[in-house]
């Protein structure tokens, strides 16, 4: 009789634990799901964090996201066929090198810092002031070689006026010295830039509005 009561007590406790686990499980399912970072639109583009809309590059390109501060906001990368470092990256960067809010001065400074740490002796092969996505901009094309590492790189950079600040789009293709640059990744970069839309005001635009409202 006592033995039977022990079994019932154990079964009862198991029932209570089961009920608790069930409740905890229910709590876990109630938590709201985070919306996905990338949402396709019916226009053949994607929306990213409801902040930007752009054309996603084709299969084979991997997305790079800024999750904890850093040098760029978002971008894409593709390891291509060939010896290291045969790859291309392109990105949208809200904080390009330099601090001047004057496009020409910013471009001058940018050219002294870009690819500097890679050991590439980068030269400017094109510099042109033209509107990009309806905004004042400077296009830079830069390239160079690192004979010690036996690498070369070629880049296209858009420095664009956005309100009181300057943002950038950058595409860099890496090849071994004996490799050949390819145009296709730059075409995907062009499609990314030309279709890029800002869907909401950024932090600085919002702050400046708030400062004006506060009379500052």
């Amino acid at each position, binding site marked *: 009789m006592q033995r039977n009561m022990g079994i019932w007590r154990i079964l009862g406790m198991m029932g209570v634990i089961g009920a608790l686990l069930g409740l905890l499980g229910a709590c876990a399912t109630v938590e709201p799901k985070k919306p996905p970072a990338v949402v396709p639109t019916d226009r053949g583009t994607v929306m990213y964090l409801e902040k930007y809309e752009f054309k996603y590059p084709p299969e084979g390109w991997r997305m790079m996201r800024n999750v904890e*501060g850093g040098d760029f906001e978002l971008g894409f990368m593709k390891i291509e066929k060939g010896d290291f470092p045969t790859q291309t990256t392109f990105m949208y960067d809200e*904080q390009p*090198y*330099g*601090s*001047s*809010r004057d496009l020409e001065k910013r471009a001058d*400074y940018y050219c002294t810092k870009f690819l500097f740490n890679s050991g590439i002796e980068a030269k400017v092969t094109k510099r042109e002031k033209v509107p990009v996505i309806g905004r004042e901009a400077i296009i830079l094309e830069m390239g160079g070689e690192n004979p010690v590492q036996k690498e070369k790189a070629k880049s296209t950079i858009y420095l664009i006026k956005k309100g*009181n*600040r300057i943002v950038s789009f950058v595409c860099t293709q890496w090849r071994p010295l004996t490799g050949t640059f390819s145009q296709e990744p730059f075409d995907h970069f062009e499609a990314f830039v030309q279709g890029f839309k800002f869907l909401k005001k950024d*932090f*600085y635009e919002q*702050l*400046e509005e*708030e*400062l004006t409202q*506060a009379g*500052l």
Partner: protein
Amino acid sequence: MEAHNRDLYLYKRLNAQVLGVSMDDPVTNKHFAKSLDLQFPLISNVLPWMGMKYGAYSPTPPFRPDGTSNWFGRRTVIIDKNSIVRYIKDGSPENQEILMFLLKLEKEFRGKK
């Protein structure tokens, strides 16, 4: 430093002054400021009394090869108009957080006037 330089027009609107402090000598600081085109003053504090006062100076390792403890940590300090330290954070400065904090301080200051 470059990020602070980029935000100077906003600091100005927020009635804030940026000061950089380093243990380097004035000539080194001058070259550093020129290389980044810094538009705010850098203080050369070779004997690190400022670092000690604001807790950025480490009296523990890493030491210099001669055994002296001569090392500055990276620390952001915001001092209000009444000379009270209101914000301390180690590591790379978080500019957006700093700007929002300054806006809060400025609103607070204006509210008391």
